[in-house]
């Protein structure tokens, strides 16, 4: 680091330390205020830009003034206007204890992590009145998406425990039979779903030995087979009961895929998917629709 950069880093670190000591930004010297406002605005812009970049078609709120960015930052984590209620300051600085990294990097790294949540909250607050429904848009982008109304469907009443146990037993039987006959690509697809990985992910395609279109198609066929089986076996039962059973079967089959993936005889490429997938699983909803 050259001396100019070292000077700037030193000034910025002093600004954070000054802010830690005084009650609020307004109490800091002008230079410290400028440094912290600049930091807040830069990080806010970074995250707002990330949202805007992903959602070009959507309305995006305007970038707030630096003072507002800082205000959002502080109000997001300030519990009370007391030192006790501002322990997040201690959290930021405690991250530097025993650290060999430059203190400024560690403090600003922590503040950046907080700012991500701040911008998320800002967007939530700004966009909700406009009824921008981001998840639905994203769900639609997935191609093979869960139907949103399925997440809002009625759930079994917890008081129906006895009946539910019977459903689970039925589901286990169906899942065992279906999973036993499922080819490797379908098992990998079930595994991927349980890990929140899209079927288009390289690791998933590699583990399955199929390209994404073939993988999608095979998985759809397997689900269709399951739906037909349940429709045939329970044709006199109400559709919502069949759906309940189908969801339980799918749940059980995913669990079975997880067990299978760790079995000694399972191909190494599947085990690699498990190892890598734990780190990269996104939680994206990409399981296919169920119609039973």
């Amino acid at each position, binding site marked *: 680091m050259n001396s100019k950069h070292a000077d700037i880093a030193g000034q910025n670190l002093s600004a954070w330390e000054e802010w830690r000591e005084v009650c609020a930004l307004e109490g800091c010297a002008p230079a410290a205020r400028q440094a912290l406002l600049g930091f807040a605005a830069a990080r806010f812009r970074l995250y707002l830009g*990330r949202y805007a970049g992903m959602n070009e078609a959507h309305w995006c709120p305007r970038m707030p003034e630096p003072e507002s960015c800082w205000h959002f930052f502080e109000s997001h984590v300030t519990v009370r206007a007391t030192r006790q209620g501002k322990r997040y300051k201690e959290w930021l600085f405690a*991250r530097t204890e025993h650290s060999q990294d430059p203190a400024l990097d560690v403090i600003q*790294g*922590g503040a*950046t992590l907080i700012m991500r949540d701040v911008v998320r909250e800002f967007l939530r607050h700004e966009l909700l009145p406009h009824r921008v429904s981001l998840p639905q848009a994203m769900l639609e982008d997935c191609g093979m998406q869960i139907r949103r109304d399925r*997440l809002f469907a009625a759930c*079994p009443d917890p008081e*129906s425990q006895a009946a539910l146990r019977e459903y689970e037993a039925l589901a286990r039987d169906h899942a065992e039979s279906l999973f036993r006959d499922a080819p490797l690509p379908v098992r990998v697809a079930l595994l991927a779903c349980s890990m*929140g990985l899209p079927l288009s992910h390289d690791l998933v395609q590699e583990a399955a030995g199929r390209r994404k279109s073939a993988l999608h198609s095979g998985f759809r066929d397997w689900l269709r087979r399951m739906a037909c089986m349940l429709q045939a076996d329970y044709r006199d039962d109400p559709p919502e009961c069949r759906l309940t059973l189908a969801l339980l079967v799918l749940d059980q089959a995913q669990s079975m895929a997880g067990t299978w993936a760790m079995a000694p005889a399972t191909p190494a490429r599947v085990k690699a998917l498990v190892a890598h997938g734990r780190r*990269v699983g996104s939680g994206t909803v990409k399981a296919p629709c169920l119609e039973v």
Partner: protein
Amino acid sequence: MPTLNLRVPVPAQHEHLDQWLWEWELDRVLTDPQEQDACASAGQEPLLSGAPGLSAVEPEASSLRSGQIRLLRPGLAGVMSQRHPAADRLRFFAVLGPEHCPQLLLIPFSRFASPAFPAELLLGREPACMRVLCVWNSWQIVPDMARASWLVDELEAGEVRDVLAVLSHHEHGTALPARLSERVGPGCWHPADPRKMYKRREAGVWREVLEGFCPDAGSLPLAAEEPGPYEK
């Protein structure tokens, strides 16, 4: 098939889930995994070789009391990993003690502003980081947690009462008071529901935190264990 009673979520629960899904997806948009690696690992590495930094114990931190709201300190939980969850986010939690329930419990706050599950309670506090309590993610607290956290606030008596009602509903299936049904999330049922991923992650985070305090923590139980594949 036997008769199965279905519970339809109330409109407010629909709204909560709608907002929660929004926040969840937005969180993914804003998170760059590489950036998170860089930020979260800053300040972590030395902890692998150093002793837990317990020198800065504060007097007030010596006792855990029911109703407290505390903030987890980074860098105190015994064995550290490169991306220890105490350092990657502000993690607030509430304490419910013996005067309120049989065991001392740690109940984390959600990072989202809307309740995702029937056992997440919207408290409605002003700071966004403590609007929702994740009752389903309650853990039996370990005494060292006092030294590893700062006291930041207290729950009010009414809040404690509401949390206990949700806890009892979650653990024992007791009826949820009608006044709370609009302050909790709907059931999670679909196997591909993203809330399942969220739940696994959040439970894993606190397991990791608490394992740092317990040398023999391989079997740390959730205060209320999972009710199997079916979630209330």
